[in-house]
């Protein structure tokens, strides 16, 4: 099997046994180079996850899974997590697309400045940014101060510890993850396509519908997948900006382990969360594989 693979790589000319052997040796060498990494991930990634799964079905019962679904409490939290992730993804897409478009079509100088303004927050720790949102949205925060001072409101508004704050903070974290794949999709489109369409009388909406949207669909799906999947597992932002009033599933898992040492139940919750995440990932990937022609889908 490995020789067949190796031959496929080279030109179809007849080759000597020596060349075939050398290629086989190269393949073996390459495989051996990957061995430490694979062992590392096997021991520290695959094995712990399998152990967690084993805990969730310890004693051969499905009792822990039954608890996840029987109690309305946890299904509500799963649904809320899903809802927030969906909201964040939609907002990031609607905000990110025009920004990516701007970056892809502006002058090189503005592009460099724009990228700096997107990447600097991207590299800043989520904890720092979330803390800053607490300063901005708090009762004595910047927004309330501003609105009070200029007489727009009479009493400070409650913005912190609401779902709004959580979504805002999460969109802030996820926006660069959406802008980057969208940018690389848009920048590859030949601007002459749009010019030709406009010359032939197409409206802006038509140009977007018929040119930009189909040609950037793979970027959209890449961004949406990334943002949605990561949003499902968010912990820091909802924990700080939700102030205990907005519970997402990652917070429940953390609490079950750290406060109640409920390993079996936490294991079941984790397996369900992981299954949902993988399902979303798989469905979106499947969908894009079928919908987007391979030539346009090379960005992924």
């Amino acid at each position, binding site marked *: 099997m490995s020789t067949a693979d190796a031959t496929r790589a080279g030109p179809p000319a007849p080759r000597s046994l020596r060349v075939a052997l050398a290629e086989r040796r190269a393949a073996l060498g390459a495989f051996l180079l*990957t061995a430490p990494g694979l062992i590392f991930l096997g021991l520290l990634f695959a094995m712990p*996850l399998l152990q967690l799964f084993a805990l969730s079905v310890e004693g051969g019962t499905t009792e822990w899974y039954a608890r996840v679904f029987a109690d309305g409490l946890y299904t509500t939290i799963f649904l809320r997590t899903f809802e927030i992730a969906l909201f964040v993804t939609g907002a990031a897409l609607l905000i990110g697309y025009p920004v990516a478009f701007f970056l892809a079509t502006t002058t090189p100088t503005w592009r460099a400045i724009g990228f700096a303004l997107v990447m600097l927050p991207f590299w800043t720790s989520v904890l720092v940014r979330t803390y800053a949102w607490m300063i901005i949205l708090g009762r004595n925060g910047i927004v309330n101060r501003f609105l009070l001072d200029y007489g727009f409101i009479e009493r400070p508004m409650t913005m912190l510890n609401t779902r709004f704050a959580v979504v805002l903070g999460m969109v802030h974290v996820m926006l660069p993850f959406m802008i980057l794949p969208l940018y690389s999709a848009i920048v590859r489109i030949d601007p002459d396509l749009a010019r030709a369409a406009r010359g032939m009388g197409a409206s802006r909406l038509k140009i977007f519908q018929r040119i930009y949207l189909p040609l950037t669909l793979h970027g959209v799906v890449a961004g949406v997948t990334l943002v949605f999947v990561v949003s499902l597992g968010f912990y820091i932002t909802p924990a700080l900006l939700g102030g205990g009033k907005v519970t997402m599933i990652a917070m429940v898992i953390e609490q079950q382990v750290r406060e109640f040492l409920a390993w079996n139940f936490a294991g079941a919750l984790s397996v369900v969360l992981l299954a949902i995440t993988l399902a979303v990932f798989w469905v979106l990937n499947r969908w894009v594989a079928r919908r987007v022609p391979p030539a346009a889908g090379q960005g992924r």
Partner: protein
Amino acid sequence: MAHPTRRRRARRDPARILLRAFAGLVFFFLMLPLVVVFPISFSAGSYLRFPPPGFSLQWYERYWNDPIWIDATIRSLQVGVATTVLALAVGIPLAFGLTRARFPLRGAIEQSISAPMIVPHIVLSIAIYGLFSKLGLIGEWYGIAIAHTVLALPFVVIVLVAGLRNFDLNLELAARGMGASRFQAIRRVTLPMVAPSVYSAAFLAFITSFDELVVAMFLSGANMTLPKKMFDNIMTEIEPTVAAVSALKILFISILLLLSLRFRKAADTPIAH
């Protein structure tokens, strides 16, 4: 590339102006949290208040004089460096292996490397927590570094594989043809050419570890990392020491970013993944 007339027309186009205004608003939204921590960190007040009642360095002094903060900082730097070294030590051979020859299951291996990116951090955290508490690694800084390496490895491998795929293998073969040993050819020709990707990978690995909270929350025990200390502070006290630490972190990351851009100026894509 664009004609001057066309560009001038584009500048006056109302849709274009709208787009620019919208992008400007989003850039403001993205930068706002980074900017606000600076005035707060110099506040003379005794609690979080905006605008700050006066200028002082008290929060920086408090950070500097508190051994718990300094210990946490040193521990985080230590864990970050160890993660970087470990991720490169494991990731470089892995990337070489994946790009150099075809072997069965190579595609599957390459895909499975990115699995830690998809698994929610909380799930991976408690899974590793379970394993490490059995091994007695809770509270050990190298335990956190090992766990952070799992998170950093996908980024490192993706960046390195992309770099190695762009590298023309004929250059290495030419070096060998002219009498260099295999090791010499890699060290003198290949590594210098892929160095920019190695710098990017190192930067990614370090940041992944240096900012990571959830894994550290479970594994650090009493020996807190900087993000864990910050999180605890935000949860319990309402005072601006965290703002000072945040301002220092933003400066530190900016310097690292500039350094890594200098190192990898040969590469043309913006640092993404």
